[in-house]
């Protein structure tokens, strides 16, 4: 697969690999234990152009194509799922704004978002709905020439620090998407502490108490909030998660191979034991298939194929499974050290668990992918 990469793609991968090793990997465990992404890491991501890497150059972004962006996400995901999740939410929300925002909204927000000077979070999940996309209790009511927004959101990635929020609510029975700025009167956030995984992703609960939102901050038409705006954002999010999950699987493969080669048991290297060989082989096989599906999704996206969203879901579904399986095997190979906070192995397992839930649980994806399977079969007959 790597031989298919162009010189430009190889150069991007080389640059991001160096960046991740220099700026993120040394503090990745600390990000996890402190449950904070330091400002200098976010600043470095922005200043080096990685936060807006996939966004258009016209607006100050990096202009990477989908495959290049995937390679970047894998490298960041390999060292820190928390930092990868910052890229994920920032990119998915900005992509939705780019696609569905008005000229005025784009002119106002895209330059600072594409350059990473401001960050944006995605606020869909609510305390009582457990991520079900069609069940929104946050509501807006008309207030003169604007709205009043009331409700609660939870599990909002980087909700503790984001400058702007893409919020989903109901106007009557119709879903709407709104841009809400931190600091708006009636807007408060509450940190979520001690989550299982991606612990440095600065999760927050958000409360909206009759927050005034100008009509000009509505993204897309009334009724388009979920089917188009949220779906587009989630599609970009799944693409990012798929590559990030592949990054975790690769990290597990590298760490496990190194450990099994250098550690001995009964005078022979761990890797000489057949059960360890089996685990390593399984990680290798799964990591390879996950990357293959990510490349496939990238190809669909690069040629703007109508099936790109479904192929992206397939890649996310598989890669999230693979990351969990790889991390489970990595813990087993490392034994007690796999459970230690001194190594990143336990972190990989916790982070991989989260990937099976975010951007559509595996069960939700089974519903949409089985429908895609039926459509695909029908189209091919």
């Amino acid at each position, binding site marked *: 697969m790597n031989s298919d990469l162009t010189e430009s793609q190889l150069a991007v991968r080389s640059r991001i690999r160096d960046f991740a090793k220099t700026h993120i990997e040394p503090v990745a465990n600390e990000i996890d234990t402190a449950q904070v992404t330091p400002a200098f890491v976010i600043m470095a991501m922005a200043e080096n152009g990685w936060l807006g890497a996939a966004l258009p150059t016209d607006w100050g972004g990096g202009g990477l194509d989908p495959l290049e962006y995937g390679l970047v996400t894998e490298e960041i995901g390999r060292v820190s799922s928390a930092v990868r999740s910052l890229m994920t939410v920032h990119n998915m929300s900005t992509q939705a704004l780019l*696609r*569905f*925002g*008005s000229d005025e909204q784009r002119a106002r927000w895209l330059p600072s978002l594409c350059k990473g000077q401001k960050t944006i979070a995605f606020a869909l999940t609510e305390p009582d709905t457990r991520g079900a*996309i069609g069940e929104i209790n946050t509501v807006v009511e008309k207030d003169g020439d604007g709205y009043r927004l009331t409700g609660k959101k939870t599990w909002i990635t980087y909700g503790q620090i984001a400058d702007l929020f893409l919020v989903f609510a109901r106007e009557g029975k119709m879903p709407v998407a709104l841009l809400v700025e931190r600091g708006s009167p009636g807007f408060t956030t509450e940190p979520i502490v001690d989550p299982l995984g991606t612990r440095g992703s600065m999760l927050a609960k958000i409360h909206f108490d009759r927050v005034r939102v100008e009509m000009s901050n509505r*993204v*897309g*038409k009334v*009724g*388009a909030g*979920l*089917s*188009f705006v949220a*779906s*587009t954002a989630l*599609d970009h999010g799944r693409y990012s998660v798929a590559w990030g999950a592949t990054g975790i699987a690769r990290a597990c493969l590298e760490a496990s191979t190194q450990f099994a080669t250098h550690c001995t048991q009964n005078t022979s290297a761990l890797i000489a034991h057949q059960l360890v060989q089996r685990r390593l082989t399984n990680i290798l096989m799964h990591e390879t298939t996950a990357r293959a599906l990510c490349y496939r999704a990238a190809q669909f996206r690069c040629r*703007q*194929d*109508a*099936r*790109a*969203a*479904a192929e992206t*879901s397939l890649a996310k579904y598989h890669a999230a499974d693979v990351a969990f399986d790889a991390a489970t095997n990595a813990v087993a190979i490392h034994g007690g050290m796999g459970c230690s906070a001194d190594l990143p192995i336990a972190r990989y397992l916790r982070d991989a668990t989260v990937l099976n839930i975010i951007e559509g649980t595996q069960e939700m994806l089974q*519903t*949409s992918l089985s*429908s*895609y399977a*039926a*459509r695909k*079969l*029908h*189209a091919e007959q």
Partner: protein
Amino acid sequence: MNTLETIKNYVTSNISYELANESDFFELDLVDSLFALQLVTFVEQQFGFSIEPDDLDIAHFCSIAALHRFVEAKLG
């Protein structure tokens, strides 16, 4: 192939059910939001125009006939 036939062929090739032109495939729960995105990309690619934020009304994308009316209006 005319516009209606092109749309009908695409939709029916993706849905394993007999569909009348006015059948709302979202209301009938035959497809999900992934298919909505798929339709947006299909229309842009096939008919060569960009779908603007104001065009994004599920009512334009919910049936073969609605899609046909929308595409014809955009093509002027």
